[in-house]
């Protein structure tokens, strides 16, 4: 397991700035369940900071702490210079939060929801319309529709509009793309990119590893612990071994066979391929012959360029049991 690296050296240009979120040794337990342990990280102004991890990793708990909905048991955390325990009022005025579950009023219309949130933040829709124009204009034709009757993608746009309507300087998005179709997911990340131009810092979580490359920096979180914090490129570069991609008509048989091969270090299904890493010391029997012996004759082996997911899987499988992780089959990512 790697020690968690805080503020990465490559982001020198940011280092003189006050971090937007500064967490040191955050811990939180629910009864005997430890949800977060010794979480430390810094989010710098203007960056898109992603938390990547499987379900139950502690992402939502951490976000509830950042948004002052939950108090940590241990550690210090400051959001925009405000302490979550003492100055929660200051935080609430300046953050936009989009919970993982759609939490707007289903029985109010699109427009009523937006006006409601504008009012409780002491502003008006007109005042900050510029900020949400790109997003809201897409659902504006349906502004008299009940929020409960919107499609998943439209609900997400409305939720984002409502979270932005008071012009927050920090936006916190808890799994915004979960349960959303691939096209809407891509659209959503485009919207976030545009928000960066408005100097809004974004903290986002996702269980989809492929979305990590959309962030400026990502923290890998699992079992309530942060494994590493770095830029996506650096994380990918951390993958040290040669990576092979193997293909066969029968992927299932192939995987079973690869798992039995004595020289195998790890096997992961990857779309139509299987990603394979090998040990430094290999057995006498070469892999192709081993596969043939196990009834797989159509296997093709190729050297592959490791992606961020390969590094994540390598990191995560280090000590802990291998997590279930989601990967969209109809992946629209390059």
């Amino acid at each position: 397991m790697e020690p968690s690296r805080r503020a990465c050296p490559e982001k020198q240009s940011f280092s003189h700035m006050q971090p937007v979120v500064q967490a040191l040794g955050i811990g939180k337990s629910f009864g005997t369940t430890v949800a977060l342990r010794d979480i430390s990280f810094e989010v710098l102004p203007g960056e898109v900071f992603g938390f990547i991890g499987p379900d139950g990793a502690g992402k939502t708990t951490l976000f509830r702490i950042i948004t002052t909905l939950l108090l940590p048991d241990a550690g210090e955390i400051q959001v925009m210079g405000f302490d979550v325990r003492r100055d929660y009022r200051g935080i609430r005025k300046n953050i936009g939060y989009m919970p993982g579950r759609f939490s707007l009023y289903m029985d109010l219309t699109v427009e009523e929801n937006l006006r409601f949130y504008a009012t409780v933040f002491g502003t008006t829709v007109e005042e900050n319309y510029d900020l949400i124009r790109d997003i809201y204009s897409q659902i504006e034709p349906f502004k008299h529709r009940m929020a409960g009757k919107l499609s998943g993608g439209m609900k997400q746009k409305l939720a984002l509009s409502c979270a932005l309507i008071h012009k927050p300087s920090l936006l916190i998005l808890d799994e915004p793309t979960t349960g959303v179709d691939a096209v809407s997911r891509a659209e959503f990340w485009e919207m976030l990119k545009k928000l960066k131009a408005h100097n809004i810092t974004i903290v986002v979580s996702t269980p989809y590893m492929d979305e990590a490359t959309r962030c400026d920096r990502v923290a890998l979180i699992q079992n309530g612990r942060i494994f590493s914090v770095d830029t996506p490129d650096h994380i990918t570069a951390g993958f040290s071994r040669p990576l092979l991609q193997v293909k066969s008509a029968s992927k299932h048989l192939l995987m079973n066979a690869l798992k039995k091969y004595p020289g195998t270090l790890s096997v992961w299904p990857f779309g139509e391929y299987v990603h394979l890493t090998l040990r430094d010391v290999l057995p006498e029997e070469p892999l192709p012959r081993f596969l043939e012996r196990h009834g797989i004759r159509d296997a093709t082996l190729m050297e592959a360029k490791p992606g961020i997911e390969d590094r994540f899987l390598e990191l995560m499988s280090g000590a802990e049991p291998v997590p279930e992780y989601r990967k969209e089959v109809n992946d629209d990512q390059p």
Partner: protein
Amino acid sequence: MKVILYLIRKEFLQIFRDRFLGKAIFAVPVVQMLLLVPAVTFEIRHVNLCVIDRDMTPASRELTGQLEGSSFFRITRKTFSEEEARTMMHRNRCDLILQIPEGFGRNIARGIPVPVQVGVNAINASNAQLSWGYLNGVIQNYNLNRLKKGAGMPAGVQLQQVSLSNRYWYNEMLNYRHYMMPGVLGILVLAIGFILAGLNLVKEKESGTIEQINVTPVKKYQFILGKMTPFLLIGLVDLAIGLTIGIFTFGVPFQGSILLLFLSSAVFLVGVLGLALFMSTFARTQQQFMFTGFFFIIVFVLMSGIFTPLESMPLWAQKIDLVNPMAYIMRINRMIMLKGSGFHDLRNDLLALVLIATAFTTLAVWRYRKTA
């Protein structure tokens, strides 16, 4: 202030958008008044009587004749068999068994006191007491007549005696509708306020909307006020509807100040809403809230003195009633409507209600934590 108004506006929007709730708010007071006020009554008509007359003399027949003549009793059976009479009562065919022993007429003529036996079906305790009371009255009357005859007084001459005549103050005809209506108004306001407000908050919890509100700068007191005010207004509108129905349909008199009635009901409602919101902070689902809420409503109502006088409850129960807002509003409503009591007469009850309302609301604000 603007935020509170907007929160209130939002509640109303949601309530009236709900197809069922929007109508139920107005239907409940109508149905409850039309149903409960006339239905709940302690008046007894037609007590079924079974007579076992073992004497069969003019004297005994005079007694049964008098019973038959009263509008309360209906002699459903005359028999000589005690067995049969018991079976009748067992099958619910009669409420009272009157046994006149053999030799009743003879002994009474000699001036020897004669016992008659009365058996009362006490499945319904208050019914039993009342019908026993009526029967007693008839027998006393019979005795009086015998006395006159025994004294050899000609008819028309009055026996010297203390005659007791009573007058029922504040409800001369002992009309149970008059007695029930102020109480039913209390139940109405209690049920509407308690259930609507409590469920509303739990629903926000269930659907997660409260989470989104909690990260806004909306303050605790604004949120609680925004939740209470709509249901306070709805409760008072329902009170007005109920009152109108009561007065025009049942002709219940209204002696006191309408303003005072609404004022006390408003204080009562704040207490009820405070308790509902306080309890809803414990409930995670609407089902949990309904279950506990139902329990509270039943206890509040049954212990309020609507059916049985508070004074006849055991002392410990009366102590519990010190924190039962329903007990106060029951008394206040009756005093204002039937007796015309003013602020001065009710000040202690009102003060108690104010204290209860403050306590429950404080608890609600305290328990409602924005950070879970």
